[in-house]
């Protein structure tokens, strides 16, 4: 299961020239407004014909500028959640949802309309027309419609941007389940680093029509070079973790390369592997192992690199028993604690700061 994209196209004065691989799992397209994310997704869906290049899904060539006719959109079987919902105004919500069902590939696992409607909290809307829905309701119906077409791959262009935190928290686990169980790859456009960090297995960073960096999420998101591009607020590291045991008080104990972590219960059994994201600004450094703090997670590590940010902050890259951890502290603190490459430090991570939506199965 893998999508390979290598295309070039010109839109007015905008030059799109991207190549990346989207392996199984979620590939996040991340980039500022106007960087070409929607254009890439349109090309994959077959709604835009690039001037040159090639797009293939699991070896099935969707488009090749050299070898002639591309596959028409309806043969591609890609569930596209558009940036604007694009619901069919003349059909009820129910019929909108069901629209793609009849064209599901034979043999594909077909999700159930009722299940999806409940998940998306749109069951009370089923008999309404799209014209009367609120912005977020529309977006949820659009997500449901794409899911129900039983696609080979999901293309999601900022699907959750119109949704409140509670709704997001309901939908994200389902997307994770789609990613993991159904083996359907997802191409996911988002500005929201929390979403990206949670879902993405692969991250493609775009800028001005070019791919700036692409690779496994852990690698890309903890790349210090990308901090200015991702935004300092969104810098952080993804760590592979294994569940050790679940405690009675609702905490789960995880083992990572550099020690153990306590996180709120994730409902995973012991032995499961998972990913946790630790934001750089959620890490406090100490020159000794601190005691008597409410923070449960204290990791020992060694400073690898420092990078000055804009303003009075620095980003510190730590090696914690093999894992990379980022910490964002003030220059003043860095001086006070004498932070320099090679220095041994303790990283204080509030367990709850590794929030529910930042925990994703990997």
């Amino acid at each position, binding site marked *: 299961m893998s999508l390979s994209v290598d295309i070039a196209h010109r839109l007015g004065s905008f030059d799109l020239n991207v190549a990346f691989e989207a392996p199984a799992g979620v590939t996040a397209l991340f980039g500022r407004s106007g960087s070409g994310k929607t254009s890439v997704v349109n090309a994959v869906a077959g*709604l835009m014909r690039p001037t040159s290049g090639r797009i293939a899904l699991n070896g099935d060539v969707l488009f090749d500028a050299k070898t002639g006719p591309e596959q028409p959109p*309806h043969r591609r079987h890609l*569930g596209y959640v*558009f940036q604007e919902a694009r619901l069919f105004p003349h059909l009820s919500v129910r019929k909108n949802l069901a629209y793609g069902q009849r064209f599901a590939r034979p043999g594909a696992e077909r999700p159930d309309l009722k299940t999806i409607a409940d998940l998306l909290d749109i069951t009370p809307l089923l008999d309404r*027309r799209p*014209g009367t829905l609120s912005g977020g309701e529309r977006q949820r119906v659009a997500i449901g419609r794409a899911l129900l077409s039983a696609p080979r791959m999901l293309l999601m262009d900022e699907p959750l941007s119109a949704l409140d935190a509670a709704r997001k928290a309901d939908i994200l686990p389902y997307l994770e389940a789609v990613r993991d169980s159904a083996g359907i790859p997802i191409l996911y456009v988002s500005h929201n680093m929390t979403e990206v960090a949670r879902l993405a297995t692969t991250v493609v960073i775009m800028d001005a029509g070019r791919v700036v960096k692409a690779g496994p999420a852990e690698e890309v998101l903890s790349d210090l070079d990308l901090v200015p591009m991702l935004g300092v607020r969104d810098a952080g590291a993804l760590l592979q973790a294994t569940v050790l045991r679940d405690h009675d008080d609702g905490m789960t104990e995880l083992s990572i390369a550099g020690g153990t972590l306590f996180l709120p219960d994730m409902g995973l059994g012991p032995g499961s592997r998972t990913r946790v994201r630790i934001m750089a600004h959620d890490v406090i450094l100490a020159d000794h192992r601190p005691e008597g703090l409410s923070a449960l997670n204290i990791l020992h590590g060694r400073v690898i690199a420092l990078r000055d940010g804009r303003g009075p902050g620095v980003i510190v890259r730590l090696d914690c028993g093999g894992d990379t951890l980022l910490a964002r502290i003030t220059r003043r603190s860095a001086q006070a604690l004498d932070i320099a490459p090679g220095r041994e430090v303790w990283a204080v991570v509030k367990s709850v700061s590794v929030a529910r939506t930042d925990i994703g199965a990997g």
Partner: protein
Amino acid sequence: MSGWLGPAEWQAVALSLKVAFWATLLSLPLGVLTALALARGRFPGRQVLNALVHLPLIMPPVVTGYLLLLTFGRRAPVGEWLAETFGLVLAFRWTGAVLAAGIMAFPLMVRAIRLAIEAVDPRLEQAAATLGAPRAWVFLTVTLPLMAPGLIAGAVLAFAKAMGEFGATITFVSNIPGETRTLPSAIYSFLQVPGGDGPALRLVAVSIFVSLLALALSELLAHRAAKRVAGR
């Protein structure tokens, strides 16, 4: 009211209704196809087709009727072929009146439908395609319902025009009572003789009444369709 119009007049009314009905119904699918080709097609003969569709509007009806006669008449190649192959005779038959009325109404119908097609948001059709729907299905379930208001407008224009068509009809299929003597032919006859104004105006009133009924019906349908299209 049966005393108000004679049996011959009632016959003309019934015939006109029949002709207008079939002319509208039969030209609708063709009108949709043509409008689609004109609105979306990118083939070389597009402008020629467009011109052709508009011809009946531009040419005097008599000329259109005469051309029909030269094409579909009994002695004309197409007419002969139709008669031999399908047993379909048009000249001097009510079927020919349907053809004449349909052709005269065609430009009006196509224009309305074409406008409606052009107003359909292609992004919705794209959305349907990404859901796996083949082009024909997209057309049937998305494009067609969304252009319903224009379809209705086109149909009612065509019906009204077909009810009123005279020149091409009488030229092509003549004026045979019970077969091709439509309402407008009857009206024309009355207007030709001194003192015929009264009966002529009575028939005009019937014609107006019928057409306005169709109009009112279409408004109702169009209103519903517009609401649907707006998604409410």
